[in-house]
């Protein structure tokens, strides 16, 4: 039984065009050109309990709009959706108590006060019993290793520390569904890794259903078995990450180092040269020909070492984004 269902969901934004300048501002008082953007076009999918789904797409693809509809912030133009059996935009308390939304770009904690104050406020809002609150708090603080920063005003914290506090605030009421909108944006590599490991563990232990949007493919690779790709408001892929890679990756990368200089022209016969120095080359070759090319190079050229790599996932995703334009 799916915990989230989305059926033909669409959202059209209405806005006005306004030319710059004072005169045009006056003109716009009585005449404005109305424009429409279809941010999300009839998308449908279903997510089961405990799944951790990556929601991908370029900027403006409709990811955040979909998350906004699923968390009840905005109404759809048409279509249906349910989260835990409720229609999210009706904003029923019973539903709101069971999910959380964390936005990497929006601070939900009280800026001037220590994070602990926000945790206590959330405890009251979500009516978390004292014992459960204490247990969850201790566990989350320990997992994220932030016991000693919860008494410092939020504005004094680093971005990474703040994100960890945001996660604690969002998870204190043990939500069954968690929407994460770019939770690792702007974080350094170590903090990204910490957050990623935490999410993986949390999803495994608590069976919380998570939808994650991110521009960092490392996030997606490390966390999501299933991904949904949306571009220009339309759903373009829904399925396993492995399957996606199989389907879209038709090339492999050969990284070869030589014991002596090899001219570029010699290498051009083996595949597309991506990087070249006289003693090192990065070649892109068709997947099915990888073995053949590798053994030919080993035979014909003064090879020191050969590495066969997958095409980076970023490139695959970029390819899908451009293919679906």
């Amino acid at each position, binding site marked *: 039984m799916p915990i989230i269902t989305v059926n033909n969901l669409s959202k059209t934004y209405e806005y006005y065009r306004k030319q710059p300048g004072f005169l045009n501002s006056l003109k716009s008082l009585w005449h404005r050109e109305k424009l429409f953007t279809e941010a999300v076009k009839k998308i449908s999918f279903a997510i089961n309990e405990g799944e951790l789904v990556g929601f991908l797409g370029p900027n403006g693809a409709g990811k955040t709009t979909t998350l906004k509809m699923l*968390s009840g912030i905005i109404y759809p133009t048409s279509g249906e959706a349910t989260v835990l059996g409720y229609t999210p935009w009706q904003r029923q308390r019973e539903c*709101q108590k069971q999910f959380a939304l964390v936005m990497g770009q929006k601070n939900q904690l009280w800026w001037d*006060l220590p994070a602990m104050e926000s945790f206590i406020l959330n405890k009251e809002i979500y009516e978390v019993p004292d014992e459960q609150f204490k247990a969850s708090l201790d566990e989350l603080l320990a997992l994220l290793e932030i016991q000693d920063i919860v008494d410092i005003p939020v504005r004094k914290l680093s971005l990474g520390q703040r994100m960890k506090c945001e996660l604690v605030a969002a998870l204190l009421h043990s939500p069954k569904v968690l929407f994460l909108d770019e939770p690792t944006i702007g974080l350094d590599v170590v903090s990204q890794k910490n957050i990623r490991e935490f999410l993986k563990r949390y999803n495994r232990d608590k069976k919380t259903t998570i939808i994650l949007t991110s521009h960092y493919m490392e996030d997606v690779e490390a966390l999501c078995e299933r991904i949904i790709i949306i571009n220009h408001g339309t759903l373009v892929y829904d399925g396993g990450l492995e399957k996606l890679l199989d389907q879209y990756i038709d090339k492999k990368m050969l990284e070869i180092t030589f014991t002596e200089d090899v001219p570029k022209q010699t290498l051009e016969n083996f595949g597309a040269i991506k990087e070249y120095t006289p003693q090192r080359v990065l070649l892109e070759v068709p997947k099915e020909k990888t073995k053949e090319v590798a053994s030919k190079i080993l035979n014909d050229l003064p090879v020191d070492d050969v590495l066969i790599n997958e095409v980076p996932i970023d490139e695959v995703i970029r390819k899908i984004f451009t293919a679906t334009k």
Partner: protein
Amino acid sequence: MSVAKQLAYRLNLLLGRFQSLIILLLLYFLWTEVSRSTGQFAGLTSTELVSYILLVHLLRPVVFGSLSAGVADEINQGIFSTYLIKPMSHFWFCYWRELGERTVLFGAATIEVLIIAFLIKPTMPLTVAGWGLVLFFISLLIAHFLYVLLSYCIHLLAFWSREATGLRFLYYWLVEFSSGAYFPLHIVAPAALLLLKILPFNLMLYTPVMLFLGKVPADTLLSIILSQFGWLAVAVILTAVIWKRGLRRYSGEGI
């Protein structure tokens, strides 16, 4: 928490209070000067005038508020979205958040009025008692909620226009002017007074203060309280309608 927030910025709070203290002293000297020769002005004795401005100063934080540090800005910046997903009423959240601020400001205003009373020793007549006092409190409570609701509505207009700052400024200026915060309203010309009485703002400060001073004719008491209730009902309905329609337009910008 908003008490804690207020106290986190003590200097800001002190400066704000200093400003309102200056206004209080200014009004005090103005009205004692005006009523010096005859001992009264516009039907109020000089002691009643002093009581009026001291009461206004004391009740200001009870009725007027900063409405939750700018609900409109929160709507424009998308912070509003983070409240919308929580299992709580946004109105009551703002209300309680503001109540904390009000409590601090009311405490400060009380101390200020006590200091002034100690310094100038005005003969403050407690002219109202019994039922009059009950009516005063009812009127004050309605005034409080009337202000909160109308102010909330004005902020919710941000759903339609991001550039409603001018409108809000105009609104607050109108409220300050026509609520009796600076002068007892009945000193203006009859035609202007009629206009001020048509607007709901006179019910916010002028009415409760005059009730406290026992200056409301007995035969108009009922109609005054009823009109307060009437306006409150209008404000409640208006808020509900604006909220419902506004949310349909809200696009959660900024996230």
